[in-house]
């Protein structure tokens, strides 16, 4: 479980996170949603320790991140998987090497075992015939799948995803959503996903946090989000024509 307490973060005069608290439980897919500029990515990177909060605490299973020394912070990070919005694959490594990289760094597995494990996750994300290609030789959607495979190859305790579905076709996006959900439940990990995709909200939104201008404006489940009276949340959810049509069809 990850607990956030009164977190604040500013860049110069611009206060991006304005002090809020929430909890992300393990075994659930936790979604952070909100419009562009609402502070989602900063919130995610602050939880990961890439940005130091001005005040407040991030508590990983009872361990306040800011109170851990450098060594323990790094030990904790070894238990974290992260999917970056731009994939962040290592340019000089092949797909297979990228995916096996965390195993090479943190396990005593032999090369053959690493490759076998990498291929297990390659199959799980439906990535075929790309093992020996460089990231620059595959499509954006495939790069995203490689990033997801790399983040889960080491069986992380915490999984963070920044827009995991961007650049993926709807079918693959659903596969990825379901994959993340399956892994979350199977391994009882704490998964936090930063997304704009309302399909993901409907598919896997066990716990949803809605951010607005650095505040936590609403939180609840995927069933509750369609019944809420909060106008900002409603406007966000029904900004998609598809959802508008579904609502109109239901009303009529």
């Amino acid at each position: 479980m990850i607990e956030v307490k009164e977190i604040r973060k500013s860049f110069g005069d611009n206060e991006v996170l304005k002090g809020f608290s929430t909890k992300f439980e393990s075994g659930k897919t936790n979604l952070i949603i909100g419009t562009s500029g609402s502070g989602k990515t900063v919130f995610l990177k602050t939880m990961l320790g890439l940005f130091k909060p001005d005040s407040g605490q991030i508590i990983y299973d009872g361990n306040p991140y800011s109170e851990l020394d450098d060594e323990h912070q790094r030990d904790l990070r070894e238990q974290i998987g992260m999917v970056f919005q731009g994939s962040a694959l290592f340019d000089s490594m092949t797909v297979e090497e990228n995916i096996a990289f965390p195993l090479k760094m943190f396990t005593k597995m032999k090369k053959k075992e690493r490759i076998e494990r990498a291929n297990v996750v390659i199959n799980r994300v439906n990535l075929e015939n790309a093992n020996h290609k460089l990231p620059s030789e595959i499509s954006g959607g495939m790069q995203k799948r490689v990033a997801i495979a790399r983040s889960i190859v080491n069986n992380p305790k915490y999984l963070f995803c920044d827009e995991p579905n961007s650049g993926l076709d709807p079918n693959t996006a659903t596969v990825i959503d379901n994959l993340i959900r399956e892994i979350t439940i199977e391994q009882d990990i704490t998964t936090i996903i930063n997304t704009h995709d309302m399909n993901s909200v409907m598919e896997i939104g066990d716990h949803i946090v809605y951010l607005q201008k650095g505040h936590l404006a609403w939180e609840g489940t995927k069933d509750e989000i369609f019944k809420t009276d909060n106008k900002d949340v409603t406007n966000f959810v029904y900004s998609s024509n598809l959802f508008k049509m579904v609502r109109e069809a239901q009303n009529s």
Partner: protein
Amino acid sequence: MSYLHSIGEYFLMIKNTFVKPTKGKVLRDLIFKEIDDLIIGSLGIVAFISFFVGAVVAIQTALNLNNPLLPKSLIGFAARQSIILEFAPTFVSVIMAGKVGSFITSSIGTMRVTEQIDALEVMGINSLNYLVFPKIVAMLIYPFLIAIGMFLGIIGAYTAAVYGGFAPSNDFLSGLQQDFIPFQLFYAFFKTFLFAFLLATIPAYHGYFMRGGALEVGKASTTSFVWTSVAIILVNFITTQLLLS
């Protein structure tokens, strides 16, 4: 104040480069890769420049020796002194600030822009140790590159002086050996080690702490070249003052 901040940040970066080392096997592979990129990849340009600049030094010296009382052996002597003391260690290092320095800044800067450094940090890897330490170790071999530069510079000078008809072979060779002080070789290699460290760390600093996109990567490479050159020239002045005055 921003300069002081940058200098402090640079020294903190160096300190953090040596903590929490990356796994040995991985580090070994990275060091060999850096030796290939930074040293082996620079052999061609260093050899080419050294040979021809050595030749030019010999021709320039010969053309300025108008007095018939001055012996032709001075061509060899002047070529040796200028190549060993300044040209090979300092001039080549400034060129390397452009070649190797730009490569280091742009490769690390691109990793910063594309969040690859964030990915390393999130995994619990000390990105400074992973990225910068192998470059520092690889650059320990840099004096060998400079030794090759010295050798080829003198060969170039010999070729231009003897085959260009400026000095007989015997005169050039006796000038080359005239008043040789071994300490000067120590001085040349000592400052080369210092330049090697600057060549690995200043460009790495500019790449690692850059912000922005592709345009800023280009700007960081230019800034890194300027500051590495400035640092090399200053360190050259200080070491010369301390060791030769």
